[in-house]
């Protein structure tokens, strides 16, 4: 399905992504992990064509994505939804309008200006919001919502695009553990129920381990690990994060359960 071949991105003399090769056969939930600055975001932005690759190619079902221009490129972007760390909604517009922005690729600017979305689309937008459990918030302004709710609106916008691939760039990095779990669970459910491919940048190891079928580790722009969560041993993780022997998985965790596990361990040790 998706083939990334020797994809490279340079900013001046700095190489952000260095000859990345990824091949995905069936819709999978993939977690990309690595330190900040490892090139995870740049990789996803190139897949969405928000930024252009320096060299290398991306093909999706035989179609060369990196060569698309103009309307064809925007059409690809509508088939390949993106979710951002800071949600990137239009704060002053209501939630349903923000979700309806997912259909912009098939709308003219004039129709958008006069807010002429078909009734069927408006109904579908509210159904998607209901699926994500935030239909109550439909008429509110996006800026009035909490971070976790805003991220779910962003997911709803992505679903409104009816995409084959959903890219999530650090979707939970600015959320508290509770909301992080809701958002990751939503992405997992979308993957399982709709059969969409999900590629998520995550900076915590346990999230990737818990929700993803396949984990890709990046370090300094290179792909240093590509396998199942089970193959991701502590040694490999140390290598990805460039950490020393004092590195433990719990140290990068944002999960409540990890904390629980630690406290129970500690409690066990004291007992």
């Amino acid at each position, binding site marked *: 399905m998706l083939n990334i071949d020797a994809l490279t991105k340079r900013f001046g003399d700095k190489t952000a992504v260095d000859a990345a090769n990824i091949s995905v056969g069936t819709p999978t939930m993939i977690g990309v992990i690595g330190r900040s600055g490892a090139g995870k975001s740049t990789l996803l932005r190139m897949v969405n064509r928000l930024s252009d690759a320096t060299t290398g190619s991306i093909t999706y079902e035989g179609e060369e994505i990196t060569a698309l221009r103009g309307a064809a490129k925007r059409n690809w972007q509508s088939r390949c939804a993106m979710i951002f760390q800071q949600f990137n909604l239009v704060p002053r517009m209501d939630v349903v309008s923000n979700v309806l922005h997912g259909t912009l690729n098939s709308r003219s600017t004039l129709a958008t200006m006069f807010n002429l979305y078909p009734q069927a689309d408006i*109904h579908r937008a509210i159904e998607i919001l209901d699926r994500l459990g935030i*239909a109550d918030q439909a008429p509110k302004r996006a800026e009035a919502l909490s971070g976790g709710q805003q991220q779910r609106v962003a997911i709803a916008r992505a679903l409104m695009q009816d995409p084959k691939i959903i890219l999530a760039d650090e979707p939970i990095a600015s959320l508290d553990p509770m909301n992080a779990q809701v958002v990751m669970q939503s992405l997992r459910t979308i993957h399982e129920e709709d059969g969409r491919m999900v590629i998520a940048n995550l900076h915590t190891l346990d999230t990737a381990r818990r929700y993803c079928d396949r984990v890709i580790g990046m370090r300094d722009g290179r792909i240093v690990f590509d396998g199942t969560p089970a193959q991701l041993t502590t040694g490999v993780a140390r290598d990805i994060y460039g950490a020393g022997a004092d590195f433990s998985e719990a140290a990068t965790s944002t999960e409540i359960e990890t904390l629980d596990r630690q406290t129970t361990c500690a409690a066990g040790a004291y007992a």
Partner: protein
Amino acid sequence: MADISLSGAPQRVDDIQSSYMAQVQRRRLYGGLTLLIFVVLMVSGFNIADDRNAGGFWEGLHQIGDYPADVLSEAWAKRADLPGLIVKYFPALVETINIAAVSTLIGALGGLFLSLLGTRGLARWPRLIPLFRRLSDIMRAVPEIVIALVLIFILGGGPVPAMIAIAIHTAGALGKMFSEVAENADLKSVEGLASTGATWSQRMLLGVLPQVAPNYVSYALLRFEINIRASAILGFVGAGGLGYELRNAMAWGPGRFDEAGAIFILLFGTIVFFDQLSSRYRNRLTEGHGQ
């Protein structure tokens, strides 16, 4: 544990859908009405204006290209003379640019004082803030051409009245823009300098100016561009420079259109040149230190 419901109660979703649709319909109605009122006002306003117009808009519309076509065809017919004419009018261009440069410098200096004296938190005499603000309002409310006409009447024609006229307008306009920048300046360093016993001018010079300088220079460069245009226009009322020559060439009608063409080329080239130059410097000043 937070579990998200993936199957909401259908009744409730229907309610939300219908109430949101009602809201959308109401919004569309208001939007449509606003558009209708706008179109009606525009059309009726245009018809009134067209009735009062001496010539009539529709009768004159097809002639709109005649004059430029005359100028262009004559200039093209005598294109061999153009380089010579451009050389001939180059001193006039230099005069126009000089008027603009001097008036921008003097106006920016005036605007600097007006802005510092008219900004809350920075002003030397806080009670006089409204005075300095109104002063800069008046200076930019009066068009350059009006000041120039009055000054030409008093002082006689030439570049000096034009320079004073543009400088007065520039001081008013830049005073407003500068004071908006100064309002956002961080006052902590000013307070620090005040604690050492520095005078007002020392505090402004060392505490405020370094912060606002990039924005001030950028606004002043933008103003310089505008002033080149203004000084060319003031030539029409006898202030010398390129505008004066252009008026002569155009007013005497066919036969000197080649000169008008040469002056247009000079003016256009100059404005493009300074526009490019200043936008490059402005970008460098506002976006960061020389890359």
